[in-house]
């Protein structure tokens, strides 16, 4: 199915590639593609069938993802909803919330944007200042969120707001779901390195949210969000197929454009493939462990550190292979620019290294 329908065939990534999902046309084209996926019930294979999935096991899902990327299919424009919000909803949502929110998410009828960071709270979520005030039948949200991925085009947002103004830091935060087109919401795109507004700022001015759109308990947002943050890091689990597909394209580029006598570049091509393969097998191990009832936990930081660095070096190798053409705009350059965000987003790599050192190696927290 994928080989026939995928908008970009793996054999020739330059042909039929969808425009960047950070552009208006690209976003629409990606939404269209996800409608097709959903019609084939392939958009959320690991979900329960009554919500649009196929009850796939984790392993089946990893294999599906591999096929998906091997066929040259594009990144998912729904990813913030499917990979960040959905696990939290499954863990903390009410049956009513699941029934109401999941099917349109599965069909990309509602595309979600995360509203995590604030100007004064980047890596440090506990510094959040946006507030929620109690009102009749719900809450009024006010404040500013930033670095919200594709919020310019998305339909709904999710994030933390301070519902108890007296409480300190982690306490007094509540997890809200809100409509990006509601009264009082202003979204302003932030152009990225590639010139497209892949990120946005969201300004909220007394935006009404009904009680039904509180996720988890009032004041319990930190705990709920931490499970999401761990999922955001768990994005790792999304992508082994993706890096292997990139590595295979790199090997192809090496054959097409590389100088076979240049072992320096050849070694880097080999390392890129070895890294992608390592990440795939590592993910198999993680999935086996999860299937046995294990938890992902801090080990997801290991995966995140690895894939984010692999993605950068793989694309650097591609640009270097292109020789004097290395500076030109194109798919490899787009992939390179995108890869640079890897070590920054979903918890900077500096924070991930702290997590690995403290929670897996048992080094003392103390000062940093």
């Amino acid at each position, binding site marked *: 199915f994928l080989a026939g329908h995928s908008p970009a065939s793996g054999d020739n990534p330059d042909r039929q590639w969808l425009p960047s999902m950070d552009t208006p046309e690209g976003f629409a084209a990606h939404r269209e593609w996800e409608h097709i996926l959903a019609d084939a019930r392939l958009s959320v294979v690991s979900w329960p069938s009554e919500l649009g999935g196929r009850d796939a096991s984790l392993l089946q899902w990893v294999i599906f993802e591999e096929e998906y990327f091997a066929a040259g299919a594009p990144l998912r424009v729904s990813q913030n909803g499917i990979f960040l919000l959905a696990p939290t909803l499954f863990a903390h949502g009410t049956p009513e919330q699941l029934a109401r929110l999941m099917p349109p998410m599965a069909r990309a009828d509602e595309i979600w944007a995360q509203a995590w*960071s604030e100007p*004064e709270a*980047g*890596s*440090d979520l506990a*510094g959040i200042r946006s507030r929620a005030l109690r009102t009749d039948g719900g809450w009024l949200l006010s404040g500013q969120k*930033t*670095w919200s991925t594709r919020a310019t085009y998305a339909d709904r947002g999710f994030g933390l707001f301070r519902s108890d103004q007296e409480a300190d830091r982690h306490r007094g935060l509540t997890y809200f779901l809100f409509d990006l087109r509601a009264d009082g919401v202003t979204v302003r795109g*932030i*152009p*990225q*390195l*590639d*010139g497209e507004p892949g*990120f946005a700022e969201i300004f909220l001015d007394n935006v009404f949210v009904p009680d039904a759109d509180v996720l988890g308990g009032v004041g319990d947002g930190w705990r709920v969000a931490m499970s999401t943050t761990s999922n955001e890091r768990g994005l790792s689990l999304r992508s082994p197929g993706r890096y292997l597909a990139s590595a295979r394209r790199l090997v192809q580029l090496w054959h097409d454009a590389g100088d076979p006598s*240049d072992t*320096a*570049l050849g070694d880097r091509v080999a390392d890129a493939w070895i890294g992608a393969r390592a990440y795939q097998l590592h993910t198999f191990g993680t999935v086996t462990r999860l299937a046995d009832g294990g938890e992902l936990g801090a080990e997801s930081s290991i995966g995140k550190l690895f894939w984010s660095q692999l993605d950068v070096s793989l694309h650097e190798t591609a*640009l*270097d292979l*292109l*020789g*004097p*053409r*290395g*500076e*030109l*705009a194109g798919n490899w*350059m787009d992939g*390179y*620019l995108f890869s*640079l*965000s890897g*070590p*920054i*987003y979903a918890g*900077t*790599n*500096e924070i991930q*290294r702290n997590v690995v050192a403290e929670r897996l190696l048992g080094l003392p927290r103390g000062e*940093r």
Partner: protein
Amino acid sequence: MRFAPSPEQRDFAGSLRDLLAASDVPAVGRAWARGDFGPGRKLWTRLAEAGVTALGVPEALGGVGASPVDLVIGFEELGRAAVPGPYVESVAVLPALLAGTPSQSRLAALASGEALATVALAPHTPFALDAGAADDVFVVDGSTLRAATVSRELASVDRARRLAVLTPGTVIAEGVDAVRAFELGALATAAQILGAGEALLDKARTYARQRVQFGRPIGSFQAVKHQLADAMVGLELARPLLYGAALALVDSTATLSRDVSAAKVACTDAAYRASRASLQVHGAIGYTAEYDLALWLTKVRALVSAWGTQPVHRARVLAALQ
């Protein structure tokens, strides 16, 4: 022997830095990227008045009789400010190609800043930078310099750079010194990328002192300190190679290609590492096009492969050591 810039050279660098700091170069670069070359031409004229465009031209042909060390100083400042335009081509490469040929009178207009020109020099520089903004476009074919027309334009990661595929035209000069011209292009590019890397370190340092996370400036975290310290070490040790190569150019020593390539390799590695550290320290804000950082980040990435890739220059060093 002294190995340090003279007071005059320090003054020259300082005056360029002041001029550029007062010129809102980021706005000039954004306009240039949109194809609006007006502000860039204006800045070109001001830099010409400061002596930059005459740096590579002999005094007899309208230049100022500057030394290659001055040239390097000028390009380090152009890179530090991320100035757009075909300076490497007009100021460093074309004077080396035209001087001593029957067409050398063309250098007066380049030296005075009245004319902008650009040039392609295959195999390492197959495209001409900013041909759309240039008054004259050339292509080197062996030891022949020809006029050229643009057959196609290619976009660079640095939106203020447009690369032209050329169609060769009439002969301008025969027997040009393409080898020396390439050395000058590589040296000027090395200086430019080093300056850009220094600016990226400087921006990261400033940001790390101001930005507060977890209740303290991020610059107080060892992880940030050490990334920036390593970036500084790389830049500080690359600069002497640049000046060493300029001195080799003064004397046209036998080690010229070795010294120029060593400078290009080290400046490129150092600037690229500084750019990665700077982006990482800035975090998401560094990734946005509105924030000026992107202008330097993309310029460094573009210059990595300009006027000879790293493998090309490493191979030249190794060959010279045989």
